[in-house]
């Protein structure tokens, strides 16, 4: 019993020291994870694939704690792609049930979300409850991409802008890099600073294609359930070493996209369009989230 306590405290101390060392340098604001390798991990251990996904989720929880310790403000994770629907019906159903169960758990763990000020957002309607419960938090953001592809996201952004042009809210020339980024699901912090993919694959697989341009990337050979604090630390160190080149690349990229200073009328149109997008998102959450429990309502009022 005492030995377990010592081990636990040692791990906490190691985590604290590693995060303090890393925080001496620049920390990425937005980190994206492609959590690949759950099934292969399960196969190597002769376990069911569903167990691999369950372990993967536990690993995600640990990883989020490390990110909080490091001061990373936004974390985006690729939980399930639209392409993954090609998998067997049993596996898809298991993953969706797991996502639903864990997101409900997350919504119930108000303490954790409140303590760290985490706002949960995700790009498909599966956890509106978690989103509703955490909508007032500002300190950190967790984006969970379920049934998501980047092309669909970009297409949706173009369609939204086109709709705004059709009804006169925007003009075609109002479409800029910045407005496009604000129209994506990951707004307001779209630009990814560090992208980590596990299992050794070296492609993005239709994940955050727009947002991860000019991002530092780390393809790590480890499978996701084996992803440890040291792997994350090595990725952050690599980011810190590439920081000056990253800044230079982004400055160049921004120079290419820079438009002339926009006048007031353009800003007003854009603000109206973005407000409409935000209202639409909020009404979607309200429509799909189950009614809040008394405890959740009380928590929200306290925060207000």
């Amino acid at each position, binding site marked *: 019993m005492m030995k377990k306590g010592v081990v636990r405290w040692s791990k906490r101390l190691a985590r604290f020291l590693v995060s303090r060392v890393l925080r001496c340098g620049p920390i990425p604001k937005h980190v994206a994870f492609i959590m690949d390798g759950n099934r292969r991990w399960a196969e190597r251990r002769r376990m069911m694939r569903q167990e691999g996904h369950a372990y993967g989720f536990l690993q995600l929880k640990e990883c989020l704690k490390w990110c909080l310790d490091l001061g990373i403000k936004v974390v985006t994770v690729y939980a399930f792609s639209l392409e993954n629907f090609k*998998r067997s019906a049993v596996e898809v159903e298991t993953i969706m049930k797991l996502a639903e169960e864990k997101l409900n758990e997350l919504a119930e763990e108000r303490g954790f979300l409140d303590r760290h000020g985490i706002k949960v957002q995700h790009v498909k309607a599966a956890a509106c409850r978690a989103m509703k419960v955490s909508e007032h938090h500002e300190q950190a953001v967790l984006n969970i991409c379920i049934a998501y592809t980047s092309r669909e996201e*970009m297409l949706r952004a173009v369609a939204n802008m086109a709709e705004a042009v059709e009804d006169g809210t925007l003009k*075609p020339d109002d479409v800029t890099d910045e407005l496009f980024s604000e129209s994506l699901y990951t707004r307001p912090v779209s630009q990814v600073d560090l992208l980590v993919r596990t299992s050794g694959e070296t492609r993005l697989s239709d994940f955050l294609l*727009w947002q991860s*341009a000019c991002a530092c990337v780390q393809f790590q050979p480890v499978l996701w359930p084996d992803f440890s604090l040291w792997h994350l630390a090595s990725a952050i*160190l690599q980011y810190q070493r590439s920081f000056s*080149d990253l800044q230079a690349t982004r400055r160049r990229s921004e120079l290419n996209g820079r438009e002339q200073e926009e006048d007031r009328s353009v800003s007003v149109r854009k603000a109206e369009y973005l407000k409409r997008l935000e209202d639409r998102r909020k009404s979607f959450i309200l429509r799909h989230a189950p009614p809040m429990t008394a405890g959740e309502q009380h928590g929200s009022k306290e925060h207000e």
Partner: protein
Amino acid sequence: MKSIKSLLCWVTSLALYPVWVAVHVIFELQKRAMFLRSAKGPFLQVTSTSSSCDVGKGGRTAGHVLLALNDASFTLPRHVEHEMVKLKSCIRWAFASGARIISVYNMHGWLEGAKESLMTALQEEDFGITTVLIGENGRPVGWIRGGTFREGRWDAKNGEECGAIFFDDLDSGKQRLIQCARELCQDVKESKEPCQRINAGDIEEHLHKKSRCCNQKCFAQISLRTSLSLDGHTCLLVEHTSDKNSASAVGCLDTPPSATSCSCSVRLPEPEMAISFGPAFILPDYNPWQTRLTEFFEGGELKRVKLADLEAILLRFSSSEVRVGK
């Protein structure tokens, strides 16, 4: 309590700062040691494309390779000249590995001032296959066969294998997608298209490079690796290795005197492999719509790239598997 905690964190950070510096120094020393170890290896010299690389035979090959140049450090003309020699070798290596479309995308713009020189330097190369140089806006500059560069009409033999080198402008990146979005919004405004019907096909249609070539449609479903003559205009077609049943027209080399507006577009397939050259491994801001399944590899600094590095990349690429969600 909070202030004590933050004071403790601050003091710990100050005490651990030397550790952070030491870790970075160790990383840097490790990197230099690796460079020195490999310095004795063969420099990048690929002399022939007639025989494909042995590495990766039997595995996947990339039909379209993207060379992303991401080094902000060199701006002097002598740096550029040195890099051009390496770049030519990389292009030659890419053709030898089986690629038939090479895109050179420069993220920092150093290639802008050197594009003419690079084009001139490439015109003296013999890549072993007829190669077309495509410059701004997808317009063919000319073609090279046996180390001789020619402009104008290309009398290709039926079934002749050919390749293409694209010099992608800085606006090949996100700006192209923004331009496409603006054009679609304009179409919606002019009621050419209702916004609800915008689909992925519309975006792809607008993303194709437009080239002022001729007033005839230049591409059609034909067999691979052939050139096509339509109404006396010779079109270049390049093999699209990932899709065996179709070919993509790259452009027209022969513009008739009566040419008016263009109805021809250059349909560039998605790059299967992208090699990012630069001191840091940064994802290029190449057209995000087209990098969905692209395999990204770190090439390191262009001035230090070795043949062994590129062969290792090819080996990794050939052994990778694309499951597409399954």
